[in-house]
């Protein structure tokens, strides 16, 4: 001990929340840590087994795959932190694309009008999910399963009824298409490599979602609602409002994905999207979101989407026998998740 004033020893009486923790310890406690380690492992693995994986163009392809998934995985993760599920998220993307396409076409309106109408209707479906959930008793699993089936049927039924076939008509020759395509489906060339604009949307969503979660009161509400609904209600958290908001967030993500789908392929197949909702949930879980709610992060979900993108495209880059494609995908995801889980356990143990 020198002559300088001794550092104040942590007082037993001080609030444990005010104790300063080292940056390293803080990092270890982050929910996305495991997934980041998993992502690095997957990245290194494919760098070794697939020659073309490290090319800039290949990475752009991987990022594209990750971003189309991540745009949905981030809001889905928020919803899961809030303790709820959305099984209708996959087909909602298709609904959103169908609405803008068919509205523009049938009304012979500027494409942007259809895009706006689609935003309204998609958000309204999110509100419907939220209101149904908060006003009634059944779990979100059942409610959104109902919405999932209804939307699947409506996607087909309305498309067939309105356009006479099961896919929409092409709107690529209509006014507003090219500017909408710039916003939702263009490519940005950096250093000779084409990057899809969905990557930007994805990054923006990560930033916004992280800000909401960590820096705003709403973020606290989301954690509180997911951690324990009754307790949250008891301390005055607006539970219903928070949950409706979370479903609207998912709807907003579905709207962006849907518009991307429409403007990159200019016709939409009405039967698409089924099954994707599970992949969004998988990405969120790989990213460290607890299936029971109350724990997780937007960055984690984004990294989960990145792992999924790297694995699904890495298998193609590695030119493995495609008969086994789904099997490889399952093995890689399981390994990534286990590693993630292990890292998190270690991190919690050292806390």
């Amino acid at each position: 001990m020198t002559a300088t004033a001794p550092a104040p020893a942590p007082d037993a009486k001080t609030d444990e929340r005010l104790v300063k923790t080292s940056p390293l310890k803080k990092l270890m406690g982050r929910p996305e840590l495991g997934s980041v380690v998993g992502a690095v492992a997957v990245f290194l693995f494919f760098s070794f087994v697939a020659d073309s994986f490290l090319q800039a163009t290949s990475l752009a392809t991987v990022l594209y795959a990750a971003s189309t998934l991540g745009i949905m995985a981030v809001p889905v993760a928020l919803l899961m932190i809030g303790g709820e599920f959305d099984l209708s998220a996959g087909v909602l993307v298709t609904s959103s694309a169908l609405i803008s396409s068919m509205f523009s076409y049938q009304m012979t309106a500027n494409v942007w009008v259809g895009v706006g109408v689609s935003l309204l209707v998609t958000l309204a479906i999110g509100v419907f999910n939220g209101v149904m959930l908060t006003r009634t008793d059944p779990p979100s699993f059942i409610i959104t399963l109902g919405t999932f089936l209804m939307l699947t049927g409506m996607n087909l039924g309305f498309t067939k009824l309105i356009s006479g076939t099961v896919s929409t008509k092409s709107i690529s020759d209509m006014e507003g298409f090219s500017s909408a395509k710039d916003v939702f489906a263009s490519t940005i060339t950096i250093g000779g490599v084409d990057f899809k604009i969905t990557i930007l949307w994805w990054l923006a969503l990560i930033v916004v979602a992280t800000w909401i979660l960590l820096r705003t009161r709403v973020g606290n509400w989301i954690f509180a609602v997911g951690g324990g609904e009754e307790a949250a209600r008891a301390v005055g958290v607006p539970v219903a409002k928070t949950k409706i908001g979370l479903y609207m967030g998912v709807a907003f993500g579905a709207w962006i994905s849907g518009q991307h789908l429409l403007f990159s392929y200019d016709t939409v197949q009405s039967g698409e999207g089924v099954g994707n909702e599970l992949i969004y949930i998988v990405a969120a879980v790989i990213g460290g979101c607890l299936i029971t709610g109350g724990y997780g992060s937007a960055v984690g979900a984004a990294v989960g989407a990145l792992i999924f993108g790297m694995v699904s495209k890495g298998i193609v880059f590695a030119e493995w026998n495609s008969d086994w494609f789904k099997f490889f995908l399952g093995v890689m995801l399981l390994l990534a998740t286990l590693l993630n889980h292990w890292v998190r356990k270690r991190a919690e143990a050292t806390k």
Partner: protein
Amino acid sequence: MARVKTGVRTVGAVLVAVLGVTAGLTGCSSTGGKRAEDARKAATAQGKAAVNTPRWTFGMVTHSGDGDTFWDIVQSGAKQAARKDNINFLYAHDDEAQQQAQLVDSYIDKKVDGIIVTLAKPDAMKGALARAEKAGIPVITVNSGSAESKDFGALTHIGQDETIAGEAVGEELNKRGKKKALCILHEQGNVGHEQRCEGAKKTFDGKIQNLYVTGTNMPDVQSSIEARLQTDKSIDAVVTLGAPFADTAVKAADSAGSKAEVDTFDLNEKVAAGLKSGDLGFAVDQQPYLQGYQAVDLLWLYKYNADVLGGGRPVLTGPQIITKDQAAELEEYAKRGTR
């Protein structure tokens, strides 16, 4: 609950505000859209019954999934023939074999006058066809199941032999001097898909590889094809097994900087346009419209005149190779959903 109400009110206000913004944009599009289509349609008249035979009821049960473009064209062919032949046409589908068999059973219970069925999963349909035979209901098989059709007691089979269609692709690729091709399967475990790629492998002198993609997720289809083309620059042909995937494959080849030619099975409006513009090399059409139309028409002929076409042997509707030369003519038909 008060909080919820304000929440809902806020949501409402936001929606109204966005609606206002949208309304501000309400420019109409002077190009394309419904108006242009109506103009095209004006000339096309709808047919009327051309015969005065009793109004028989025919039921069609396919293994189609929801919202499949191909089966939509089959249906429109069947409906056209039904209108002409004064037939009450019923349609049902399910991609689960067991469900499909149950649908056939329910048509038998309804005592329809004829049944059209696909045998994509033949074993599951065997019992249902036997029941139909016992009930004295004539059956025609379409699209898939040419090998089993006769054994199961069907009058005849109308469709394309998938292996033969694949072989036609292999030959066409040879003719075009291709060396290494990629076969894109958008449904893992579909027997017909496997047969197509197998058939192509049989006749193609170069190398052909399979690539499975998730057909219900277009961005995934695109990025998977892109990834493969980036890995292997020597691939000079990509064959998709369904019309909606051809355009996506073109985009993928584009962004991968690959020179590979994209060819496809089946036809739709976009494929016809792609052939015309040179984005696509060729399309293998099995004429789905013809499959639906002929099935209804042949059942009618059988009821009316006890006619059986093909002497019980399969009647092939394809493969027809379509290139740039025929594309312009077919585009118009594809646009109205009959090719």
